[in-house]
């Protein structure tokens, strides 16, 4: 329950920053917060309080956390990092031409 609450709050903060803020870098931060919220939720949801899923020889494993969501989240983090990097590069590029990173003042983004 607590993790769901944290997920919703984080996601909403990210969505607020994406939609309401006019600063493009804050928009990207908002997008990353939303991603972080989803990853956090996935990891905490798959944590059932068991061991790390590494099989040790000669030991019986009774309760362990599912490693697949962790692997999937790792891929998601990599993809999120690369999109964030690309977006920030484009914002720098845009700043060179228009001298501002305010969404409202840049032609082509304000409609």
């Amino acid at each position: 329950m607590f993790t769901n609450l944290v997920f919703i709050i984080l996601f909403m903060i990210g969505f607020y920053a994406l939609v309401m803020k006019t600063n493009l870098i804050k928009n990207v931060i908002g997008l990353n917060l939303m991603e972080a919220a989803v990853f956090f939720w996935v990891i905490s949801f798959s944590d059932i309080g068991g061991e790390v899923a590494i099989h040790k020889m000669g030991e019986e494993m009774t309760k362990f956390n599912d490693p697949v969501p962790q692997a999937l989240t790792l891929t998601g983090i990599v993809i999120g990092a690369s999109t964030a990097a690309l977006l920030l590069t484009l914002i720098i590029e845009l700043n060179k031409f228009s001298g501002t990173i305010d969404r409202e003042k840049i032609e082509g983004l304000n409609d």
Partner: protein
Amino acid sequence: MDIRILFLILVPLGTAFLIPFIDLINAKLRRFFVLLGILLESYLIISIIINNFQSLREGDFFLQYYLGGWHPPLGITLAMDGLSLLFAVITAVSLFLIVIYSIGYIGHHEGKYYVLYFLITAASMGVVLTADMFNIYVFIEMLTITSGALIGFKRSQEASAAAIKYLIYNVLAGLLFFLGVLLIYFNLGTLNMADISQNFASLESGIQLFISAIFLTAILIKMGIFPFLFWLPKSYDTAPSPVTAVLSGVLSKVYLYIFIRLFWTVIGFETLVALNLNVLLLDLALLSSFFGHVFALQSNNIKRLLGYSSIGHIGMITAVIMLNTDAGFYGGLLHIISHMFMKAGLFVACGYLLQYTRSHAYRDFKGVGLRNRSVFIAFIALLLSMIGMPPLLGFASKWYVLMAFLEARSYFGAFIVIFGSLTAVIYYLRYIAKGFEEVKLTEDDLREEIYSRPLLSVLYREKIVSFITYAYTAIIVGFGLGFRFFDLPLRMSIESIMNVERYIELVLGG
């Protein structure tokens, strides 16, 4: 087990990563490698078709490959059935023509361009071939990143702004898709599409609705259906012409493939009907088609107009597929093929025609037709095909779409098809008339024009560029006369869409 379907993904991926190293040795070798990569890709597809021609005829075509030898549902499976084969072939043909066009068109930063281009090729092949939900997510994100970088390729203010807008919308869609995939994993404990398909109906209907809604939102943003279409025209306008041809000709079709795969094979159409989503989606797609054509009417920019017209056509295809009848699929898939060639051809021709103009605006289109007469005639033929003129491919596909709507008694849909054609007559004829307007150029005008040319639109090899335009026109005219050629592949694809049990059995049992 056929390793060639793995190589369909690996060859473009390998080419993409080899190109920077080739650049270090000798930049002139690059073009040779680009051609080699795309020819190898075509050879693989053709050899798959020829080797399996007998089973294609009999309708039991199916190939698969287990990555790392892990059998499903544990490992990642690549599977190719009739639908995948159809989409793989048409994407490969489109990408083949556009890469040759790019050799003539792109004159600067070629190395970077081809790296991104081949990553798009690899990712679209991957989406079409994979039978694993998470793989689809990874390949979608690959498509988003590479196409976003290509939209910002001109490095102007408009291009960067359009790329940012495109990326924000599409990353959001990708995030929703990720959430959907993970929800499926938590509820069913599997990522294999056939395995999910087998067990999806056993979930509670609330969870089913939630997962379907999340996937639907993600895929509607990606396709540019009505409430989420605002990123599309801008990015079509500012991207270089070959990139726009890829965006419209390949990417939107790949997303349509994901749409069909998700909602027929994985989630199942019965689930959509049970959740009452199908009528909503049908109306949304038709509304999107309507708005696309209306926005196109007021557009004063040729490439943006073509983007709005793409929205109209994608909406129409989605609607006719949502009818879930054989005739609907036949019309929809035929229109996917014809729209792919028509739109890519139009953008390709635009890239040639707009080289002399200062901008893409309506007023600058004046006199374009008189300068490049034969290419402009090819352009007109493609426009007539978009409208739906009888001997061309656009007519055949629109006819089947219209018949499918009438057969299902969806009169609003039939109205939209006719409405689209009629508005298309108005907004295309305007440009044709403007193109033939006489324009007197003084020497000052010419000088100003040459200096104001955007850097990238200076053509590199004019012959190649105009040749590809003619090739697209020849395809439209040739297949317009012989559209029966598509009969066998279309029937095969419809069979593999409708027969979900066979797909499950072959993927899990093979």
